């Protein structure tokens, strides 16, 4: 954090405070803010705001109607309270639902036209919005072999997408990769057909709200028998204060296609909490395969539990076609509160769903996360590997549903759910729900809870590592199976993140 090194201590400011801020900033590397002129919709949410968002995005009438219906529904719903989460009531009328940089008023026609301040923001985050061989999101990429892969990036800043790279190259392959607002205008037939078909408007409180007010997000369509020529990624940045980010992602993998999609997210550190409620829908047709990897690194709040992102996310994949396959991999290190259950509907015969998760909570962070594997088709398979790590005063809950329907004959699930505790003020909880409604299917569940072992710590320290290095190494080992499921570039970033998010957890 170069900025803070130059920080002058004002008279009257306690040295201690400065030190505290410095150490915090060192912990969460993405806590800086971009100073940029913004335009906001008025605070709060009501039909006028919904219409305004739709209008800002230049949407057709059907979309506006869709949103308004969702809003009417949302008004009748109550916020769910079943999760093991404890946070002050959210005042949904005390937020901005739309914030966009003034310079984005005219949508830039190409990356060259994008406000340099925005480009610089992503550059600083390690996501240069240039069409070159880059390793998205990887620091120290220069140490890596030169055969960097191409990764296309859609960059979302507060409520809008500021640009998408490699669009023309992808177009040649028939792949559509653009912001969802663009897709609504350019590919309405696809959006109409698929939007809300996996996560219906009525799904849950946060998804319903998202359906009403989502402002942007990414859209992916992979045509039949096409292997997407590069990895696709979306990088979400919340910058504005008191602003919720509601993004919507829609991925369609047509018959026999393949895509690997990465998602990254960060936000400035502030001492007021901020809301993030996303919906991701994935449609996987016959013989298609989608890999969806997330490194979630929203600001987690400070070490006293102040601030941070409240992250309420609905992610679901519908394996519609026979032999379709989806793999969710998530590394959840950020957010003050995480409520997230990426799920798989295994509808097609012999379809497969996998869920690999690392959830790390430190200080006052809380995570209630897991997955749902809904087996509808015959011979379907699912695999769940969840690694929860808690430190400080954090609470970490794995909540998972495995459901075998009567027609899901000969289906299999394997669940492995391990928790690791660092210190004795944190908690880990495992809440499995299992329903088997046919007698040819099998569900296996294994769960362990352990503490970071003193012997292992001493062994590492005797070899010269300090306590934090030792914990990071042991935790990375504990989470190895999941880290291995990530694309290589992400795996490196995730390993470093594990170390960073556990800083201050020992000693």
């Amino acid at each position, binding site marked *: 954090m170069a900025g803070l090194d130059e920080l002058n201590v004002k008279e009257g400011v306690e040295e201690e405070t400065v030190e505290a801020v410095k150490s915090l900033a060192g912990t969460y590397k993405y806590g800086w803010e971009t100073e940029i002129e913004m335009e906001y919709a008025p605070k709060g949410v009501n039909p006028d705001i919904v219409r305004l968002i739709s209008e800002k995005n230049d949407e057709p009438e059907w979309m506006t109607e869709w949103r308004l219906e969702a809003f009417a529904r949302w008004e009748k719903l109550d916020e769910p309270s079943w999760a093991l989460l404890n946070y002050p009531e959210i005042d949904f009328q005390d937020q901005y639902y739309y914030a966009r940089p003034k310079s984005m008023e005219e949508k830039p026609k190409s990356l060259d036209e994008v406000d340099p301040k925005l480009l610089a923001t992503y550059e600083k985050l390690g996501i240069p919005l240039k069409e070159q061989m880059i390793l998205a999101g990887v620091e120290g990429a220069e140490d890596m072999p030169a055969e960097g892969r191409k990764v296309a990036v859609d960059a979302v800043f507060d409520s809008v997408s500021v640009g998408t790279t490699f669009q023309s190259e992808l177009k040649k392959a028939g792949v559509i990769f653009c912001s969802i607002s663009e897709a609504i205008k350019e590919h309405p037939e696809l959006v109409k057909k698929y939007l809300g078909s996996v996560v219906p408007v009525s799904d849950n409180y946060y998804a319903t709200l998202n359906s009403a007010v989502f402002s942007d997000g990414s859209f992916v369509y992979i045509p039949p028998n096409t292997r997407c020529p590069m990895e696709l990624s979306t990088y979400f940045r919340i910058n504005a204060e008191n602003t919720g980010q509601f993004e919507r992602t829609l991925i369609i993998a047509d018959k026999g296609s393949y895509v690997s999609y990465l998602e990254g997210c960060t936000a400035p550190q502030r001492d007021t909490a901020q809301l993030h409620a996303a919906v991701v829908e994935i449609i996987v047709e016959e013989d298609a395969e989608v890999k969806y990897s997330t490194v979630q690194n929203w600001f987690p709040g400070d070490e006293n539990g102040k601030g941070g992102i409240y992250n309420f996310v609905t992610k679901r994949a519908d394996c519609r076609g026979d032999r379709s396959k989806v793999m969710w991999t998530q590394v959840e290190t950020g957010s003050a509160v995480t409520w997230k259950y990426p799920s798989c509907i295994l509808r097609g015969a012999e379809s497969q769903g996998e869920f690999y998760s690392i959830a790390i909570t430190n200080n006052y962070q809380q995570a209630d996360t897991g997955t749902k594997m809904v087996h509808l088709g015959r011979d379907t398979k699912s695999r769940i590997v969840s690694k929860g790590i808690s430190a400080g005063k954090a609470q970490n809950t794995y909540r998972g549903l495995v459901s075998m329907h009567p027609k899901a004959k000969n289906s299999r699930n394997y669940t492995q759910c391990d928790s690791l505790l660092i210190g004795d003020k944190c908690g880990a909880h495992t809440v499995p729900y299992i329903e088997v409604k046919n007698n040819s299917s099998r569900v296996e569940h294994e769960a362990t809870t352990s503490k970071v072992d003193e012997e292992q710590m001493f062994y590492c*320290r*005797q*070899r010269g590592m300090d306590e934090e290095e030792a914990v990071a190494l*042991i935790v990375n*080992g504990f989470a190895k199976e999941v880290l291995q499921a990530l694309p290589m570039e992400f795996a490196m970033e995730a390993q470093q993140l594990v170390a960073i998010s556990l800083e201050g957890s020992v000693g």
Partner: protein
Amino acid sequence: MLKINNLHVKLEEEDKQILKGVDLEVPAGKVHAIMGPNGSGKSTLSYVLSGRDGYEVTEGDATLDGEELLDMEPEERAAAGLFLAFQYPVEIPGVGNMTFLRTAVNAQRKARGEEEMSAADFLKFIRAKAKDLKIDADMLKRPVNVGFSGGEKKRNEILQMAMLEPKMCILDETDSGLDVDAMKLVSEGVNALRDEGRSFLVITHYQRLLDHIKPDVVHIMAAGRIVKSGGPELALEVEHNGYADILAEIDA
């Protein structure tokens, strides 16, 4: 090099005195062996010197090259050049042996204000050392000590020692569980590291090891104290007669 002066140690949790006035000096470049009956406090001494939790020093001190050892954190002692080959090496699931060692080597270098070793140099270095100890590439990739046989674990300790190049090496029963060939490999590994600037404290129950690693001095530890010291012939005496005579001599 290593100086231990009237060291008294009790368990932190209970009122049990384990070391009752250990005096020991290992000069630079020398190899000292410690023998002694089970439960006499040999491992405890090695743990206290390397800074493991759970012990309380009630009297005495220990220095490494004049630096007060007992005030330092375990990792500071390691960076100062103290190495312990564990009697029971610890398993760390999911952490590759090579990753572990590279992290350790670079942590020590960083602590000493030296530059980190590049990945390429490290690889060259570890391959050479592993070859000497007949440790194959597969074992370097496997998680630290997980599923290693007893003898493999011990060889792995010596590999770590060779990589970290410490100046004070404590070996706690590194020979236990080794077959004849492995014993030779390990001894050769230790002998290759013998150097004017490096000292060894070798804890063992058997003369066999000392045939290969010729000690300068042999100490006998009993009931938390060094009760007798002598030349290599002392180890032979123990081998033939056990501890009874020596202990009787002291009691008298």
